[in-house]
């Protein structure tokens, strides 16, 4: 090991201190929701639950995760997330690669066309009519296809491709490889970190998407988890004095809300730690290049 300078040691101390402090304060809200999900209802209602549970119980969580609609929605969400993420990743990378070659005629214009749609869109009605024309209303395809390429994500991948050493592709070109082959055989295998990042972004998007299912899905059997979650959370947030007695009597308990939030968030939270190994694999670029 190389010797540690004073500067290095100060840096280390500073780094750990700052990161631990950040970790602690960002953990607060989550700790609060988790505590609520396993506390007794009376303690939550009277505002006694802070960062640790009061009157520990698991009945609320059990009630939430054994609800048949919860389980079904979980399955729908998982399906949409997996299929959507894979499809989006492939198409986005395929789009980003040619656009990273700005010397090719037309690419600059196409990039601007993409960026234009980040800011401008036609609004809900024309989108709804389009999806209806495509016979995708009440079809899971409506949750994936209209969101297939995120321009933001595409630009991140494109920026990454641009930063790859050009020499790699050149040598493959000299050996007569087609662009198609270069993308899938050389470029993508070197793009672990960015693909993991964008995969995470897409997965989180598909998992958290509430708006498209609300607009495009009618059948209870096709509703994903976020729709279910949003309905439960919204149900309790609406100002209570303007509501009917029936609604108020059926408002889910606060503990149930917290447990629903936790149960529907944890699956997607698990994706990041799993992907983190690809963030580190990216470090190997240098050695691949050799």
């Amino acid at each position, binding site marked *: 090991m190389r010797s540690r300078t004073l500067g290095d040691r100060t840096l280390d101390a500073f780094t750990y201190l700052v990161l631990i402090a950040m970790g602690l304060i960002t953990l607060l809200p989550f700790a609060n929701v988790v505590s609520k999900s396993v506390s007794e209802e009376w303690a939550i209602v009277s505002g006694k639950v802070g960062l640790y549970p009061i009157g520990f119980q698991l009945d609320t969580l059990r009630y939430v995760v054994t609800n048949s609609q919860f389980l079904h929605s979980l399955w729908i969400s998982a399906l949409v997330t997996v299929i959507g993420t894979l499809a989006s990743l492939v198409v986005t990378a395929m789009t980003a690669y040619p656009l990273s070659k700005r010397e090719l005629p037309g690419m600059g214009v196409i990039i601007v066309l993409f960026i234009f749609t980040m800011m401008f869109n036609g609004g809900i009605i024309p989108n709804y009519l389009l999806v209806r024309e495509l016979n995708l209303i009440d079809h899971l395809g409506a949750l994936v296809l209209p969101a297939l390429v995120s321009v933001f994500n595409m630009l991140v991948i494109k920026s990454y491709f641009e930063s790859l050493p050009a020499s790699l592709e050149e040598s493959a070109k000299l050996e007569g490889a087609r662009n198609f082959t270069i993308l899938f055989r050389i470029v993508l295998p070197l793009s672990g970190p960015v693909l993991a990042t964008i995969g995470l972004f897409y997965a989180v998007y598909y998992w958290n998407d509430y708006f498209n299912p609300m607009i495009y899905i009618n059948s209870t059997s096709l509703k994903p988890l976020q729709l279910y979650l949003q309905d439960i959370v919204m149900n309790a947030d609406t100002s209570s004095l303007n509501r009917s007695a029936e609604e108020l009597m059926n408002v889910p308990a606060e503990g149930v809300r917290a447990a629903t939030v936790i149960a529907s968030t944890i699956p997607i939270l698990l994706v990041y730690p799993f992907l983190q190994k690809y963030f580190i694999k990216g*470090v190997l670029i240098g050695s691949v290049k050799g």
Partner: protein
Amino acid sequence: MQTIAAADSGSIGARGKSGRWKLIRGNLDMYLLLLPGLIFLLLFKYTPMYGILIAFQDFNIFTGISGSEWVGMSQFEKLLHSDDFFRVLINTLLISLYKIVLLFPVPIAVALLLNEVRRMFFKRTIQTVIYLPHFLSWVIISGLFVTILSPTGGLVNEVIVALGGHPISFLTDNRFFRSVVVFTAGWKEVGWNAIVFIAAVAGIDQEQYEAASIDGAGRIRQMFSITLPGIMPTIVLMFILRIGSLLEAGTEQILTMYNPLVYDNGDVIGTYVYRMGLGQQDYSFSTAVGLFNSAVGFVLIVIGNALSRKFLQRSIW
């Protein structure tokens, strides 16, 4: 800009029609790769774009777009002439600028610091923990802050009182409200926004560090001379895109945090339009507000890109 060597036998400097044509012909499969993305773009993004026209109409429910009366810019005039428009525009710009100036650098700093951590378990744990708040809705986060910041028994004020100060009513005091908005937005999104920079750091060629070490560069110097330049393309990209949403100061967040006592400093375009139901029964007006935001955002992105090309030699297109 990163230079990329000519992809084919056609030279990069090839000028004129024949050169361009040669470049296209030699890279037909590149255009083929682009096809799915282009079809998506045209079908799902540009086909519905006609909806923008509604902003220039007094949209009539009996006749639809084709038969509605055209009113030119009058929907925009209605927005610009609203009593409080000037105030909410200023608030929007201020809150947005504070967020950009104060919060944009934080995720970058976090990525740089995380890169210095050698203990993988610690690194992963911190990465995971700081992105947790992103997954909680503003309703939950704001509810928590109301409690933490309460002048009667809130954690922060108990500390202030213990240090000999007077309790501060953060959420009802115009002097503090914007700071609270900026701070809580940072709290919620720093970890999430750091991910893209963490990934960029991971893409940096490790050989550079080894070479620098051999030259005797300390880690702080390596951070500023290798890591930071290494993620500069990502920083520039993120910054240009970020200024595109200048007029979106955090509507959803502010809606859950503000109250009539802090409208003077906290009311932004999005919350004002929402609260007043200005777009109600008036699809044309809400489309016009959206279009106003989009136009400003797009112009800013174009300017940002041009400035960046000129001064940083990097650009999105």
